[in-house]
């Protein structure tokens, strides 16, 4: 057997085992429910007979182990049981919503992945320049934002059409240019174009700040009301309609995930560029383009795949909040609703799907990373 496929099989077995443990935890959660589940749902006024009948109906009267395996058997056949609150089949509730959530996450990923990887590489290659610093500051801010903040800002400017003074945005850019320009001038030992750029930056930046302070020149930004703030997607919606309606939630997710992904890509590329073989290539006089294509890229593949997988897994958590903000009919919304209703069977179903996706993504990343970088077969 090829060592890589052997390793992949090992990882797969480990993944399935993790999934099993996680399913035990999720199913076992009911056991830790303080008080009696049936009593909790039917209320204090329920007669003992009614409680007993309900327990028999849901299967609570059976021992936990038997209940777990019948639940697992159902899940394997796509049957998650019935909702405690609405008595509807959970599979029915989930199936349409799962499609919607996957569509949203896929939409965000399609924009975010190429964007983040490209920008991350550029930031790494132009390290310590103004571009890198701009990317660093803006991504650091962006990962600090709660998802709902990004979402509401987007709604305000792209859906409601609130609009804001572009002067202040220009002033912020101006401040940045001022600082950068000052830095470039201070490093005057590298005379030539650097200090020229610094001076130009400084003048433009100063002009922008002064403009904002005195309020001379102005125009409005973000007075767009092209996208709906509520993404109610009906099941029979056309593709174009879907894209339009889920544009804002997807953009929110994209912004949050791109920042993370970009920082990680940048870090891993910088790490790579510091390795001895790159230095060797540089020392023997190879052209930078050749170094990147021939030496850096093949080795960068494994870390980048890892970064992408980690962030797609991160999308899963982000999706919950974003769906609630935009009232998007997805799995996250269902999960949050069910948590506040304490509808434990629905919560179990949703958690299992989220956890399985998360584990699968990490597993795929592991295997792909090993496939592209066989050195990982032999851990130190």
């Amino acid at each position, binding site marked *: 057997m090829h060592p890589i496929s052997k390793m992949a099989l090992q990882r797969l077995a480990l993944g399935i085992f993790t999934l099993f443990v996680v399913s035990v935890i999720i199913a076992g959660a009911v056991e830790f429910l303080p008080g009696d589940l049936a009593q909790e749902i039917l209320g204090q006024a329920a007669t003992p007979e009614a409680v007993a009948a309900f327990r028999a109906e849901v299967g609570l009267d059976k021992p936990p182990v038997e209940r777990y395996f019948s639940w697992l058997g159902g899940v394997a056949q796509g049957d998650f049981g019935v909702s405690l609150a609405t008595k509807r089949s959970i599979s029915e509730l989930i199936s349409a919503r799962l499609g919607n959530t996957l569509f949203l996450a896929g939409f965000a990923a399609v924009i975010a992945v190429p964007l983040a990887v490209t920008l991350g590489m550029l930031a790494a290659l132009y390290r310590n320049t103004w571009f890198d610093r701009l990317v660093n500051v803006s991504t650091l801010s962006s990962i600090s934002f709660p998802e709902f903040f990004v979402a509401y800002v987007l709604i305000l400017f792209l859906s*409601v059409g609130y609009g804001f003074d572009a002067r202040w945005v220009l002033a912020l850019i101006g401040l940045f240019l001022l600082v950068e320009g000052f830095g470039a001038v201070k490093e005057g030992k590298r005379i030539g174009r650097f200090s020229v750029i610094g001076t130009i930056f400084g003048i433009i930046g100063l002009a922008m700040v002064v403009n904002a302070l005195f309020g001379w020149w102005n125009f409005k930004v973000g007075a767009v009301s092209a996208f709906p703030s509520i993404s109610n997607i009906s099941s029979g919606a056309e593709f174009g309609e879907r894209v339009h309606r889920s544009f804002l939630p997807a953009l929110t997710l994209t912004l949050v995930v791109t920042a993370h992904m970009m920082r990680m890509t940048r870090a891993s590329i910088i790490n790579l560029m510091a390795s001895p073989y790159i230095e060797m290539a540089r020392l023997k006089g190879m052209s930078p383009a050749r170094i990147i294509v021939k030496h850096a890229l093949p080795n960068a593949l494994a870390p980048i795949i890892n970064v992408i997988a980690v962030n797609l897994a991160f999308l899963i958590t982000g999706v919950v909040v974003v769906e609630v903000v935009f009232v998007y009919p997805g799995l996250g919304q269902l999960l949050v609703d069910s948590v506040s209703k304490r509808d434990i069977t629905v919560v179990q179903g949703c958690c299992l799907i989220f956890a399985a996706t998360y584990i699968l993504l990490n597993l795929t990343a592991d295997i792909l990373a090993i496939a592209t970088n066989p050195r990982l077969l032999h851990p130190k």
Partner: protein
Amino acid sequence: MADVTNDPMALSADAEAPRVEQESRWVTVRRAFRSAPLTAWFGMVVIVLYIVVAIFAPLIAPYDETEVVGDSFFEPGTLMFTSDTVEDGRAFKKDLTTHFDGVIERLEINSENMRDIFITSDAPEKIFVKKFVDDPEWGITPQQFDSFAGELRTYLAPHDFTEDALELGTDQIGRDTMSRMIYAARNTVGIALVTTILSFTLGSLLGMLAAVVGGWTDNILSRIVDVLMSIPQLIFALLLLTILGANVINMILVIALLDSTRVYRLMRAVGMNIVVMDYVEAAKLRGEGLWWLIRKEILPNALAPLIAEFGLRFCFVFLTIAALSFLGLGIQPPTADWGTMVRDNAQLITFGQPVPLYPAAAIALLTIAVNFVVDWMLHRSSGLKE
């Protein structure tokens, strides 16, 4: 050795030694601060500002956190003004309807006291303000709306509470948004801090234990952590909160437990590197106990990475708590909290009112500040030179 103190040389050396050391430390700190980039300075100033606001909240806030000071001014569907000064409600109504002819669909005056004035529309709820704002037929812009409200306020001048204190207006049940923002600094940041400290204590203690003891303890703890980390944190938190019920105490415990797994991983890794050092070996051979090893040998040497990690973890915990509160599963009303405030005022955004953005921005600003400082510290400790 008793007469050493009589020796002037010894005395001066004794007196001088600690002073010199103190000075050098002060110099290092000053040099570090002087070389701090602009972003780090920004971060530190913001953090100090938040701390001051959180500590002195009752002194700064114009009103109490749960005090109802005005009417639910922004509530969609109904605009309500209350005043003891409107002597003749009918005259006021006539004034208004003639002045805003074609703008107000229906204007009602509370027949009981002749003082509460309701301006409503027949249209379904929430349509009214929206129409007000962006329906061209109504011919009224947000600015006009503001001036309209301003005129109403002037009319009710002697009872005007909106003069200076209510910079940000009132929330959906008439509490002062500004005051609640200030109190929320105390509540939200305080709860996040408690959670982070709890998570750190648990995670680092177990991590050091695993590093020092090794063997089965390490194996069992690490496998438990692996399982806890194999489910996304927010999803796991939601599951646990369903079981335990969503309230503040449960949220703190659940997040502290889930977050401690990351601290555990870091602490174990750092501890493993320290445990193999000779001085730890020496302490072990000396027969020192487990607690001594953790407290005197490992902890002081692991402090630097731990401090930076504390900042990162705080940001993460803070954002998770904000998200849970926003989802209605964290900090419960009437406690003022930024996440809950965003949730409560969320509807207003579609009417062109940026009110829900203020608390959200407060969260974002603090996280940015902490991240900037941590970034600088990590950059310094990693020894990277530009």
